[in-house]
């Protein structure tokens, strides 16, 4: 056997230089790949960009370029665009409503605690989730109650009719969200119960609340309920609205969760039974974790609807953020700034709702265990 380099195993001449690899990374690479990959695509891209620019530009001009941002009165509104000084002037009442100025630090503390708790629970890296969650559900509401309402521990009493603005909006939304989810879970389980009485109660409850418009619920809570209870007992108007909203949305929540429960195969429950797990263990450890994960989009959808519908409380005289902004529009010093007011309100609602939406998508990805059943 003779070794030779002239056989077909080895190449003796150089390979010709290859074409440089396509630039796929970076801005130019992305543009080339996605917007300008062919002459037709390039034309379409340019046309679309022009149209968008045409639409966005006036908005940008109004909202930023020609706008006035700072000022104490309408004299500051000299530009052709928006006058955000209006929002600045009303900012405190948009946030706190008629909450007494000297006590607003209490609201700030509650806001800060809420923000920290939500962030702590939302960021997976932070430790001690169980205790933080327990505090958020038990400790925080008690602290928030005493701080916001006052009347004890030497704090000035602030009746709920002085509450308002974003603070009221968030109070209603958070209580509604935190309350409607567990009630909804219980209703959904009850509706699938084998016990006829439990099932009947849940079905009637759900169908009643789903069949009534929220406005009617709020009217009933504020106008009719006092007619039925003895005169000397007086429920707080906000409390009545909160209970009404919670029950109303829990009915929707129940149906969303029930759709998730029905998607879990019977085998899961049977496997739990065969292992000797009790009903509540099976539901809590096996069925609900899977069912709730499946219906995260529906749950968050309901949360978002709930959040936006808090603005309906203005019809029973509670001044949430939108109501406060509307009230500001009738201020004779600031007539004619309704666009700014509504755009600002929309922006605030959007920021909250969009955050919920994004977080839910993140949670869905995180909980995905690769099981497609």
């Amino acid at each position, binding site marked *: 056997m003779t070794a030779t380099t002239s056989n077909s195993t080895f190449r003796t001449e150089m390979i010709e230089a290859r074409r440089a690899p396509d630039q796929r990374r970076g801005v130019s690479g992305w543009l080339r790949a996605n917007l300008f990959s062919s002459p037709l695509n390039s034309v379409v891209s340019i046309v679309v960009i022009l149209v968008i620019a045409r639409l966005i530009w006036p908005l940008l001009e109004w909202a930023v370029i020609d706008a006035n941002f700072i000022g104490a009165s309408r004299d500051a509104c000299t530009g052709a665009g928006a006058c955000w000084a209006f929002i600045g002037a009303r900012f405190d009442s948009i946030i706190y409503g008629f909450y007494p100025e000297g006590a607003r630090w209490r609201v700030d503390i509650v806001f800060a605690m809420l923000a920290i708790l939500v962030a702590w629970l939302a960021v997976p890296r932070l430790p001690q989730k169980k205790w933080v969650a327990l505090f958020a559900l038990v400790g925080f509401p008690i602290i928030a109650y005493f701080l916001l309402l006052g009347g004890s521990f030497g704090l000035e009493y602030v009746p709920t009719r002085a509450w308002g603005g974003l603070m009221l909006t968030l109070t209603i939304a958070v209580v509604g969200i935190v309350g409607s989810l567990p009630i909804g879970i219980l209703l959904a389980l009850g509706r699938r119960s084998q016990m006829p009485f439990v099932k009947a109660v849940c079905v009637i409850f759900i169908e009643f609340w789903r069949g009534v418009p929220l406005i009617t619920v709020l009217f009933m809570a504020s106008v009719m309920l006092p007619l039925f209870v003895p005169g000397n007992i007086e429920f707080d108007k906000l409390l009545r609205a909160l209970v009404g909203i919670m029950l109303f949305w829990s009915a929707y929540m129940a149906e969303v969760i029930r759709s998730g429960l029905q998607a879990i195969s019977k085998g899961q429950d049977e*496997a739990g039974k*065969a*292992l000797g*797990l009790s009903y509540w263990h099976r539901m809590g450890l096996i069925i609900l974790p899977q069912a709730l994960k499946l219906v995260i989009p529906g749950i968050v959808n309901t949360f978002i609807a709930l959040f936006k519908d808090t603005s309906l409380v203005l019809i029973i005289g509670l001044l949430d953020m939108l109501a406060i902004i509307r009230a500001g529009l009738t201020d004779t010093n600031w007539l004619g700034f309704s666009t700014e007011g509504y755009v600002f309100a929309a922006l605030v609602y959007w920021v909250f709702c969009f955050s919920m939406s994004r977080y839910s998508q993140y949670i869905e990805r995180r909980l995905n265990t690769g099981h*497609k059943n």
Partner: protein
Amino acid sequence: MTEATASRPTAGKDTPMVEIDHLNKWYGDFHVLRDINLTVSKGERIVVCGPSGSGKSTMIRCINHLEEHQQGAIAVNGIPMNNDVKRIEQIRRNVGMVFQHFNLFPHLTVLENCCLSQIWVQKKPRAEAEKTAMEYLDRVQIANQAQKYPGQLSGGQQQRVAIARALCMRPEVMLFDEPTSALDPEMIKEVLDVMIELAHEGMTMLCVTHEMGFAKTVADRVIFMDQGQIIEEAPPTEFFNNPRSERTQLFLSQILGH
């Protein structure tokens, strides 16, 4: 008598583990189980076969009350079944079950699947539960996959995890409901091997299966069911070589004939 039966420990052989007495069950008007009588002794291995719809799955599902019966009596390890939830849960703790479609909990890892009922039903500390779980996972040769989710395993691996999960409760009886029917052919053996090993260790087993090789190797008795009745009941050699009823002969010719 096969080798397997001969080598089986005989201690406590006559203690009845599962007693089914005049069991009748209806789905609406349909009479699924007709007057079933069956006693399974401790350590006995029973294979139940029969055409689909013959009530064999329903029968073994009655033993841990996944199905409710209307007439007759069932007792497991001396505990009579009734409709009391506590009593049913007590019986279920003694009875392990393996399903056709594995029914692992997809949101939990393999290890968590095996620990769940130990922690919540037997109230064991987590560390001890995990130790037991790893022991059984090791026995079904899947300990190296303990941190994976069921969705990442093959069918055969999932079924072995399901067997380990049931064994973690240290049951007195194991019920197998067509454990290999949903598996690809090349995965059937790995599951059957685990079941055969279990049988050799003296576990009381009731297997609904069409694996006649398995029946021949490990069964003490083969039960043939049709239309909700037990048609024939015999040791495997007799059952396969010398079936008495015509219906059994027809069934055997259909499943062994090809």
